[in-house]
């Protein structure tokens, strides 16, 4: 008997259906990508092409002038560009790293350990998901002022780490693991800590990779607008946003700033996608 190993497991659906899906996705995808494509185009347009009529969706003479100007503009600033960049990288790495670690641990307990009080914690998380507001922002400021954290790195990291979103997300995935897996780990003598890191986490890899993407994207956009007044501590988006807002005369430089800001999350995403998410396709363990 010949064993046929198909590269792609598929149990239903026709080729015609695949093609129809592809075409539909391609059309919608074009709509999704268009504004981003346009930003890129704008960033490599020389100034004289900005006012051509009708406006063009392509560039005749692509130039790196806008990017050069962006770095020149930032080079003459009081605080060197590298400092802003360092601030941003520091904040993003700390927020993403700490968030994924502490949210995963807590989510494991919420999803899989039945101890007194867990229901209350779960309810708190679900309700707090719905509370996003400008008013809390002021209260966060007041709390941080009391703790003496304004104008320190704490102000642009701590409020963004323990988000209800991250723990809720991890909990939803971990809840799907069969209890038997965890019981087996306990039988083998693993405590909660080891069960979480050595048994549960490897099994929810798509979840925490996705959480890294969520957290990184959000952290990279932190501006700390009302928590940080010391210029030397401000992250990159604050400066680049000022450049973006400087109007039509700097439209090209503004677009260059937009492109510069959107690149790191996209690179991270592509890296995670191709290296990790897709290889995980059939390793799922569910009840």
């Amino acid at each position, binding site marked *: 008997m010949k064993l046929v190993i198909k590269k792609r*497991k598929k149990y239903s659906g026709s080729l015609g259906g695949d093609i129809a899906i592809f075409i539909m996705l391609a059309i919608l995808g074009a709509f999704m990508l268009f504004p981003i494509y*346009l930003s890129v185009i704008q960033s490599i347009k020389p100034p004289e092409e900005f006012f051509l009529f009708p406006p063009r969706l392509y560039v005749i003479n692509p130039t790196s002038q806008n990017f050069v100007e962006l770095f020149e503009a930032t080079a003459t600033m009081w605080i060197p560009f590298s400092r802003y960049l360092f601030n941003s990288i520091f904040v993003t790495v700390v927020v993403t790293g700490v968030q994924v670690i502490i949210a995963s*641990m807590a989510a494991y307990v919420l999803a899989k350990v039945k101890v007194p009080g867990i229901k209350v914690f779960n309810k708190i998380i679900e309700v707090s*998901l719905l509370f996003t507001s400008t*008013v809390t922002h002021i209260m966060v400021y*007041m709390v941080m002022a009391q703790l003496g954290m304004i104008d320190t790195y704490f102000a642009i990291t701590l409020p963004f780490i323990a988000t209800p979103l991250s723990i809720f997300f991890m909990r939803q995935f971990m809840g799907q693991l069969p209890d038997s897996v965890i019981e087996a780990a306990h039988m083998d003598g693993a405590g909660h800590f080891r069960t979480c890191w050595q048994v549960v986490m490897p099994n929810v890899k798509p*979840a925490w990779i996705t959480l890294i993407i969520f957290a990184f994207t959000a952290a990279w956009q932190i501006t700390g607008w009302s928590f940080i007044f010391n210029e030397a501590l401000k992250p990159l988006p604050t400066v680049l946003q000022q450049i973006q807002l400087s109007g039509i005369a700097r439209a090209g430089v503004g677009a260059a700033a*937009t492109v510069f800001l959107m690149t790191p999350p996209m690179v991270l995403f592509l890296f995670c996608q191709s290296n990790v998410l897709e290889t995980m396709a059939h390793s799922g363990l569910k009840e």
Partner: protein
Amino acid sequence: MDNNTTPAIPVKRIEDSKFRYTLREMSRNKNAYGMLAPFFILFTIMTAVPVLMSLPMGFTNFNMVSFPQWVGFENFYTMFMEDEVFLISIQNTLVFAIITGPLSYIMAFMLAWFIHQLPGQLKTVFTFIFYAPTLAGNVFATWQLIFSGDAHGLANAYLMDMGILTRSREWLTDGNLIMGVVIIVQLWISLGAGFLAIRAGFQGIPGDRYEAGAIEGIKNRAQELLFITIPAMGPQLLFAAVMQIVASFAAGDVSRFLTAFPTTDYRAHSIMNHAFDYGALRFEMGYAAAICFVLFVSMLFANWGIKKLLGKYLDG
């Protein structure tokens, strides 16, 4: 409390008061509380305390300078009886939420499902394309370029070129058009997080389920979706729904960054915009907190409704 299981040692049942039983359970699982602690301590200081502080503020008159003054339900009375703009903003938010919420939720699900059917490399490419808007963050400047009111705006230029429009339209200031534009941009932005969560959920469904389904007689994609995929994805569906509720009820950024603030005749003025107006611009924090409170309560209702709808796929 009876079904509490121990991690390592089998439970020895001792007849005991509920209180002492609880205490014993707590001390035996103290590692578990230790694992909860880092998150919940930070969460309490940075999220819970500010939220709890802002709730009573809705019943005060607080201008950030003098000490808050207790006014009872006055803010709420003003809101519903005298503040016409607030009533407009409720209407806008509802229209907005009813259109963008379900639409982008269904789109996120369908797209994730379609993409899941494609072969490997194409999956990566399309996942990237549909998540790219969220990764890109604020490209409002580019949207402004597209919907710019003069003939250089892309929408105007191309629609006139094709003969659909005869003169340029003020997309961002014409009261009749703003809502449409804001909805389009919101759909573009808000697809992301829910979409990616659902995608990751699809990845976690083991292949043998589909194999079993094929043996049981599932014939086409629709049946596969209804009988295998959706029942296995309750948690992700709920996550995406909550994200969508927050995104559509608390929307305000799009109109604030894209159009003038406030929008012409308050045509796209959302509840969140109204709260921003009072909180961040007029420093009437008490009134802003009251507005946020109303928003919060309506989101709770929406959340409750979603849970009822998804009920049979959720077990907790």
